[in-house]
């Protein structure tokens, strides 16, 4: 029953969007009615999504999709998240988020009516494309042809609270760029004033913040769930999410120029189209099954082709309009060495080079396989050797960029910065001789501290410190950059100065980690609702009264016959101590302990960046 409701409301929503699209040419509406129809179609799409969720929650195995991906003994949260833990459901989630964005956009006040309508019509077109894709190739409402009492279960690796919320937030970013795309295209058709650039800025900031959150959740999940102590692997799926993120960052920075200089609209429109194209392209790569990863659910060639088609339509249409209708006003830029405009231009160029490099690295193995029928890998070492050096001048520039002037190339208080940088580099140099000296470690730590340091100097020397909302809005760019600096320190320390200790031990043994004694208490197996848990229990720092308990182990999921590893992590502000339980050999357990310094800084940095993303939305 719920499947029927879901399917009908989905089809009806697509129908309304057809109607909205035609309304431009045939059935003309009044503004009020038009917006009502947009909202109605959004609500229908959401109804469709929630009826699928309902089928999951009540374990309605007459729905084929639920039968394939759910099991009645899962905890409720994973029944809900199971809705998007599969291809069909996640595409419906994609469409629902698209609708939510249209819904909220229809309430935008400070924008010309015809412009808003045109944007929403382009959104309708996207809704139709993805809606038809769902109906014809990935329908989540198919009826199960056999009568069953039990489902096949959800991939255990996805049964995790962090991953349950990861897809909706990540999609908030990907799909959020659809509205930026629509605004940009509408801007090409109706370029009357610069008002639409401010609207585009708000929406691109919102999407970027969502995307940041989604990526961070994904890598945090990889950190504690995949159990190898790292949080970024330059996995194709990670690269795919990083490309629109960097392009989006370039977009947000270009949109800043609207305030000072006359806008370089052409470039902004190009980036807007690029961001959404990269999002769709990423979806294609993941869903077509060309890349193997946790994210590629049952692959089906026809889906890949359909999404590739959508990708070509969206990108082709976008860039075609871009070429035919390029903005008329093009002022020359006031580029000096070095003012704010040239800093932003350099930053944009570097970011685009980084994006294209990641794109090439990600698809290169596919190209080589097609051309030479040979399999190669392009992994971390390639990206570390190309992307990071390209970004370094950008990071250097970033530390002072917010205080550069729009018009002239004078820097206030330049002496302070030079002296500051000099003292800082000597300090970092001295401390890095006490630790193991490492070139990348040195560069990363210096850059991170320099960005933080210069931003703080800039805040205190250029503005009066007041604790008002306005003050936080003004210093917001500096705050964002401090966040990046903190993240750079975290990234550098945790990857360069990671320490590994291996032990072969038995229950009751004591061993030494970082000068603290750890007791291996016991091994315990328990039965949970949907898995069996094997846990090694450790007591960290037993000499103290408040010794900390750490549990590391494995889970066995009988429904899907899979084993997942569960790392035990002791979080401290300056390091994570990461316990991994290996196999038992000759009555001894293999235990790996990783000491990851300053991992918490990465998450702190990301949270600061997201905070500034949100603050920037409130500012015109």
């Amino acid at each position: 029953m719920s499947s029927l409701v879901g399917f009908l409301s989905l089809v009806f929503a697509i129908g309304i969007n057809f109607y909205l699209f035609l309304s431009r040419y045939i059935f003309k509406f009044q503004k009020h009615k038009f917006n009502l129809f947009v909202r109605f179609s959004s609500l229908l799409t959401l109804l469709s999504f929630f009826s699928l969720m309902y089928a999951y929650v009540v374990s309605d195995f007459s729905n084929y999709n639920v039968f394939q991906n759910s099991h009645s003994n899962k905890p409720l949260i994973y029944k809900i998240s199971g809705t998007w833990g599969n291809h069909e459901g996640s595409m419906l989630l994609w469409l629902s988020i698209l609708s939510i964005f249209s819904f909220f956009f229809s309430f935008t006040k400070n924008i010309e009516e015809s412009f808003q309508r045109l944007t929403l019509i382009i959104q309708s077109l996207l809704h139709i494309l993805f809606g038809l894709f769902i109906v014809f190739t990935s329908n989540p409402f198919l009826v199960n042809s056999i009568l069953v009492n039990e489902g096949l279960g959800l991939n255990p690796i996805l049964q995790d609270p962090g991953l349950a919320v990861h897809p909706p937030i990540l999609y908030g970013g990907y799909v959020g760029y659809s509205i930026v795309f629509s605004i940009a295209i509408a801007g090409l058709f109706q370029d009357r004033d610069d008002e639409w650039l401010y609207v585009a800025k708000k929406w691109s900031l919102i999407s970027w913040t969502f995307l940041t959150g989604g990526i961070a959740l994904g890598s945090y999940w990889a950190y504690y769930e995949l159990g190898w102590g790292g949080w970024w692997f330059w996995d194709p799926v990670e690269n795919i999410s990083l490309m629109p993120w960097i392009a989006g960052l370039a977009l947000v920075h270009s949109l800043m120029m609207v305030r000072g200089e006359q806008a370089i609209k052409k470039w902004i429109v190009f980036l807007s189209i690029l961001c959404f194209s990269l999002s769709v392209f990423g979806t294609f790569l993941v869903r077509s099954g060309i890349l193997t990863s946790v994210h590629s659910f049952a692959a089906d060639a026809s889906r890949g082709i359909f999404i590739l088609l959508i990708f070509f339509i969206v990108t082709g249409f976008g860039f075609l309009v871009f070429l035919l209708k390029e903005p008329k006003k093009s002022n020359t830029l006031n580029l000096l060495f070095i003012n704010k405009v040239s800093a932003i231009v350099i930053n944009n160029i570097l970011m685009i080079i980084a994006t294209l490099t990641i794109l090439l690295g990600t698809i290169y193995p596919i190209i080589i396989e097609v051309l030479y029928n040979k399999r190669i890998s392009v992994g971390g070492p390639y990206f570390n050797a190309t992307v990071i050096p390209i970004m370094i001048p950008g990071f250097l520039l970033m530390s002072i960029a917010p205080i550069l002037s729009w018009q002239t190339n004078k820097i206030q208080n330049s002496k302070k910065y030079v002296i500051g940088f000099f003292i800082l580099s000597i300090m970092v140099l001295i401390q890095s001789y006490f630790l193991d000296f490492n070139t990348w470690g040195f560069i990363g730590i210096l850059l991170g501290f320099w960005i933080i340091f210069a931003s703080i100097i800039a805040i205190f020397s250029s503005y009066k410190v007041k604790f008002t909302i306005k003050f936080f809005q003004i210093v917001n760019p500096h705050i964002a950059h401090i966040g990046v600096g903190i993240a750079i320190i975290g990234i550098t320390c945790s990857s360069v100065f990671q320490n590994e200790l291996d032990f072969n031990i038995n229950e009751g043994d004591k061993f030494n980690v970082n000068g603290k004694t750890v007791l291996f208490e016991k091994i315990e197996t328990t039965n949970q609702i949907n898995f069996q848990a094997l846990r090694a229990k450790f007591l960290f720092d037993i000499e103290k009264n408040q010794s900390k308990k750490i549990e590391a182990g494995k889970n066995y999921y009988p429904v899907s016959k899979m084993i997942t590893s569960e790392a035990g992590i002791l979080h401290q502000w300056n390091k994570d101590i990461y316990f991994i339980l290996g196999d038992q050999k000759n009555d001894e357990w293999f235990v790996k302990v990783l000491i990851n310094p300053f991992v918490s800084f990465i998450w702190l940095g990301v949270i600061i960046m997201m905070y500034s993303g949100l603050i920037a939305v409130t500012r015109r």
Partner: protein
Amino acid sequence: MKSSHFFRNLQIIILSCMFFCFKTFANENIDERVKSLTLELRCMTCQNQSIYDSDAEFSNDIKKIVKQKLQKGESDRDIKKFLVERYGEYILFRPLVNYNNIFLWSFPFILLIFGVFFILIKIKRKKV
């Protein structure tokens, strides 16, 4: 002009830092060499994991082989060559610099050169 001083100083500082960075690389022990080498190798039986990070049987075997070969005094290049002959180029996370991959390796730097030229041409040299 104040700002040009600023950047000249900045350059000098960066260069001197770079100079300090090229300290010795020589005295690394075997375990660290195993680590840095196996971090660049793909575990063929896992999903997107390096041999160093993985505890699969395949990875443990390769770790042993690498260690033995390093102790025998073979260079990283020899070991990689041996592994490529056995398992194909797929095992290397760092693609070889050869005819097929020349575009892959040169692309970012070509872009960078274009970018630098673009900036140099566009930036005005007049004093304000």
